[in-house]
């Protein structure tokens, strides 16, 4: 790995007394797609959400060990969680456009970050929508309610919204799990484009998807990182029996 964007070292995570992530140590490469797979309840979503501290909102959540983004521990006392979340954006499993216009959805992040320049906001909104491969479909109805878009379009709108605040990392939590195959394909193609500019970490339930889109794949089970490797190696020569059993569909 040349450029390491995120490094976790003996990272533990707890919900109250429940030990959800156990001594996870892994390096995530910059400008690559890192896929996280594993059976339900293995902690993959918790891992993803601890990279931008979205778990902070959950009662009794507690982190231990190191979670470094660009060499800086994001759980350190002097870190402002707001800065982390601007730098590490997130796209949720269920697309969650706000009940506003398409334009206002994308502009939201800019406005709450104190940007007032109208022309700058217009530029950013257009650029983000182009980056999310949605501009062509919405440019004539940018002031329509976002709920009028199809499911796949809504998810790409959420991606555009995340891109608008100019993050460096984009976390995606099963972004295509609620979409039909055509919409899924579009998102997957988009992810390939996005990795040129951003570091992508994606949780997916779908092994084929992980094989198709990710450069590296991490396999989690029961809160532990079982295996982590270049995707092509992971799926052709898994190092552990249990990984092989999972990716060949023997359980999960």
């Amino acid at each position, binding site marked *: 790995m040349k450029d390491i964007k995120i490094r976790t070292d003996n990272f533990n995570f707890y919900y109250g007394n429940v030990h959800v992530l156990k001594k996870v140590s892994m390096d995530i490469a910059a400008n690559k797609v890192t896929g996280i797979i594993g059976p339900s309840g293995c902690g993959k979503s918790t891992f993803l959400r601890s990279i*931008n501290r*979205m778990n902070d*909102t959950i*009662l009794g959540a507690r982190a231990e060990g190191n979670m470094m983004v660009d060499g800086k521990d994001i759980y350190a006392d002097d870190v402002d969680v*707001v*800065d982390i*979340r*601007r730098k590490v*954006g*997130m796209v*949720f499993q*269920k697309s*969650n456009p*706000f*009940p506003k216009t398409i334009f206002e959805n994308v502009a*939201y*992040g800019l*406005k*709450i*970050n104190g940007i007032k320049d109208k022309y700058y906001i217009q530029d950013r909104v257009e650029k983000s929508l182009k980056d999310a491969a949605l501009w062509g479909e919405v440019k004539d109805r940018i002031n329509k*309610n976002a*709920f009028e878009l199809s499911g796949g379009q809504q998810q790409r709108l*959420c991606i555009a*919204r*995340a891109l608008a*605040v100019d993050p460096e990392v984009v976390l995606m939590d099963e972004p295509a799990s609620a979409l039909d195959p055509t919409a899924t394909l579009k998102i997957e193609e988009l992810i390939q484009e996005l990795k040129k500019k951003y570091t992508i970490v994606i949780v997916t339930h779908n092994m084929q998807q992980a094989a198709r889109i990710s450069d590296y794949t991490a396999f989690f089970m029961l809160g532990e990182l079982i295996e982590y490797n270049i995707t092509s190696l992971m799926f052709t020569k898994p190092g552990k029996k249990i990984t092989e059993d999972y990716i060949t569909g023997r359980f999960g």
Partner: protein
Amino acid sequence: MKIKRFQELLGFNILRLCVGAVILILIFILYDIISKGSGIIHWKFLTEAPKNGMTEGGIFPAIVGTFTVTVITALLSIPLGMGCAIYLNEYARDGIFTRIVRMAIRNLSGVPSIVYGLFGVILFVQMMNFGTSILSAGLTLGLMTLPWTITASEEALKNVPKSYREGALALGATKWQAIRTNVLPYAIPGMLTGTILGLSRAAGETAPILFTGAAFFLPYLPKSLFSQFMALPYHLYIMSTQHHAISKVRPIAYGTALVLIALIFIMNISAIMLRYKLRKIKME
């Protein structure tokens, strides 16, 4: 098979009877008040003060009094109740303390209104030295409506999907920014709906204003917030039980009741319209 069908029919008709009975009672009350009260409703009745020992004239001071007191009630109840609900729903961690607070609020909504009246006398009239006045009465009613405002506001906040909050936070919003820009705009119509329903109940209350500011009869309008005032529900009470010529003033009592009901009806309709608007926004 026949017995089953008969039972079905019987059950259904009993339920239908329940609904019918409720509607009938309501219609009867409304009919009684409208038929006996509408005759006296006249422009002068609404704009003149009572005359000749309250046997003639109108109820203007009582309308003004009830209106002003309700405004004071709203000024206390809306900001305080909404603030409290926002804190409880968005900030307070679920623990023993919050549970006790919630339980206290729920119990407060069941406290008889006369008890609020006594409390108002001690706190506002005596301790804070506001005297028997519009201010004391309005604040007392404000306290009384707080539990309803808080509960309704919390429900409205709960109806805003969690994903709106998370979505905003994930873009780098602070907690307060997320609440202010992405939760409150969608909760406020619902919060106001509950609050208005609470206010309309307060506007019809007699007991809490009895000791805190309502006057038997005033020939003039209140001059300041520290003046005593006439109020529709109290005026109605006097006209139907305390007046020296009760049978003579019966029409005035009915007229007062009709005006009071109309006022509350208007408030409730506006609450329903707000709720309808909220639903439309949600569906879009």
